[in-house]
């Protein structure tokens, strides 16, 4: 009789479904997985060590580059940790802006996720639909910070600047012309908040379109229902947070349980799964987009009615305005000190977490009283999730690993740091 042995297969790091640079070494019994060993670190940049060598503010930009599809949520965790140690709090308007941008970021992240996960499992069209709306939200990022992705918009003590009063319009080009151009620009006649009003009124119908393509799609359900089932106990043992935990039926969301920024004032619901499989997590994320949309609407309403400062007026932490610098020597000195030496943070340690789109993103910050952090540790949700890969995919088929990588919502910027 012919002898049949298990064989080892290498997946990635150069593979379109590896979501970046995941290398998986799998022991296979035919098409079935016996053991999966993820090799990570191919994108390790030593962010935490770099942050230790720089004044506090200079590392905010690194945070964007961790989970590079939910940029501002990462900044939020880091900035909150600094604020906690400094004992300062951002003005109310800045808190609302942060809440709004956290939710814009959540939609951005979930759009990227639904597109790429669809692509992984053979649904090409969703990607094109999702990126249409993603582009519209990227414009909001650009309008507020000047950068489409790596915004560096949140600062200790508030946000970099107030929301723009005028949304910039598209000029005619080979890609934007005629009625298309008119439609795009009709949203952009007023301020950024008017633009977001138009967007949020329109967005639920767009989510309906994604659902139309996937929710009852037979192939989609065959690829996701009953795949990667995670029990609530297993999810907690493996340190899962966010949708990975809620998909298994545990009602846990930091926005509800340990509210930060202005989440306590927001009215939104928490979607929770039943079976803990890939399909439930898909449904949770889709519903989260609708709920984020609701939160943005509430923030827009508040922000329109309540103008005010967006940064604390503490020149040890926040720079003075250019006008003040031209007239006031104190302001000039503050500016110089802040951008050369930075500010000293009182000795102590803190752990601050935010509900990032992928789960709990935390920042453990130790300061010894210097102008640079003594130790920064960034707790990335993807790192904890990916470590459970071996346990979850054992006994699944090879193609289900791709579904699993998709449902973990991995981004290697944060896993490898």
């Amino acid at each position, binding site marked *: 009789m012919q002898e049949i042995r298990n064989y080892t297969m290498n997946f990635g790091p150069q593979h379109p479904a590896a979501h970046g640079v995941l290398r998986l070494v799998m022991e296979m019994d035919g098409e079935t997985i016996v053991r999966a060993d993820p090799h990570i670190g191919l994108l390790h940049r030593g962010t935490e060590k770099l942050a230790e060598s*720089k004044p506090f503010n200079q590392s905010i930009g690194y945070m964007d580059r961790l989970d590079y599809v939910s940029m501002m949520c990462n900044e939020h965790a880091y900035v909150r940790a600094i604020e906690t140690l400094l004992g300062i709090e951002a003005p109310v308007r800045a808190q609302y802006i942060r809440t709004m941008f956290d939710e814009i970021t959540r939609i951005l992240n979930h759009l990227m996720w639904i597109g790429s996960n669809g692509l992984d499992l053979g649904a090409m069209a969703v990607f094109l639909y999702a990126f249409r709306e993603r582009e519209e939200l990227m414009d909001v990022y650009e309008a507020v910070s000047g950068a489409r992705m790596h915004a560096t918009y949140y600062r200790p003590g508030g946000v970099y600047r107030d929301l723009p009063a005028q949304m910039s319009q598209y000029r005619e080009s080979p890609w934007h012309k005629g009625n298309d151009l008119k439609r795009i620009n009709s949203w952009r006649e007023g301020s950024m908040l008017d633009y977001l009003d138009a967007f949020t009124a329109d967005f639920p119908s767009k989510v309906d379109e994604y659902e139309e393509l996937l929710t009852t799609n037979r192939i989609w359900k065959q690829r996701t229902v009953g795949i990667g089932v995670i029990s609530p106990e297993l999810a907690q043992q493996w340190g899962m947070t966010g949708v990975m935990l809620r998909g298994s039926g545990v009602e846990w969301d930091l926005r509800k*349980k340990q509210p930060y920024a202005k989440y306590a004032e927001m009215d939104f619901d928490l979607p929770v799964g039943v079976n803990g499989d890939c399909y439930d997590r898909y449904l949770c994320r889709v519903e989260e987009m609708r709920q984020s949309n609701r939160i943005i609407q509430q923030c827009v309403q508040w922000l329109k009615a309540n103008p005010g400062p967006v940064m604390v007026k503490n020149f040890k932490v926040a720079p003075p305005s250019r006008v003040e610098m031209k007239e006031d020597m104190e302001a000039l000195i503050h500016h110089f000190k802040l951008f050369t030496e930075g500010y000293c943070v009182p000795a102590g340690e803190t752990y601050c977490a935010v509900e990032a789109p992928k789960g709990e993103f935390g920042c453990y910050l130790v300061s010894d009283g210097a102008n640079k952090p003594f130790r920064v*540790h960034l707790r990335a949700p993807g790192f904890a999730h990916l470590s459970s890969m071996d346990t979850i995919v054992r006994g699944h088929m090879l193609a289900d690993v791709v579904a699993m990588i998709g449902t973990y919502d991995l981004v290697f910027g944060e896993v490898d740091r």
Partner: protein
Amino acid sequence: MTDTSATSLSDQLAARFGDTLTLSTVRNETTAELAAADLIAVATALRDEPAFRFSELIDLCGVDYLGYGQTEWDTESVSGTGFSRGVEGQAMGRFTWAERPRDSNHPRRFASVIQLLSIEHNRRLRLRVFCDDDSMPLLPSLTLIWPSVNWFEREAFDLYGIIFDGHQDLRRILTDYGFVGHPFRKDFPLIGNVEVRYDPEQKRVIYEPVSIEPRVLVPRTIRDDADLMQARAEAADQWREN
């Protein structure tokens, strides 16, 4: 709403564990410091006992306390030495491997810091365990209590060289295959020790000693300014006015 106040947690911990834990509560965050020998027993109790139920280990990370509180810039007294004090220094990122600081006066350099989360009681707890021996930092592994700690311990081993006794698979995780040293230690230069490039003559990627120089520009400064406190109080007032 479940009880999230840290004081009652700290009281409960003190009543249950007594002198085993050294407790401190700052800004509603409770930290418990304990000896490596007690870690397994305390961790098991924290996970299983109904009063605690820390079902999730959220995070574990290594910390190297070498050089804690050291500065490169004298802010207490006036000096006539001029600008050079700003560009010469021994702190993070400003030395090569040959010039690395070798101060071993700090009692117990390495610690591992654990963040726990109880979903049932909605509260968090931080544990800190120091390694007794700096030359061979050793801690018991928690993999049998919370499986999620597996990769976090591998990371702490990789970056700090902390060895977790009882870990089944203590391999490097973030650094390159065949990497030498533990890069997040405070005496490891920010510029690293080796660089890689493709050598067209040998037709392969080769490792060479680093050619770049340490170039961190901003000195490490500690200020305990009165005006910082003043500014903070002013900011608090301002915020209230808004």
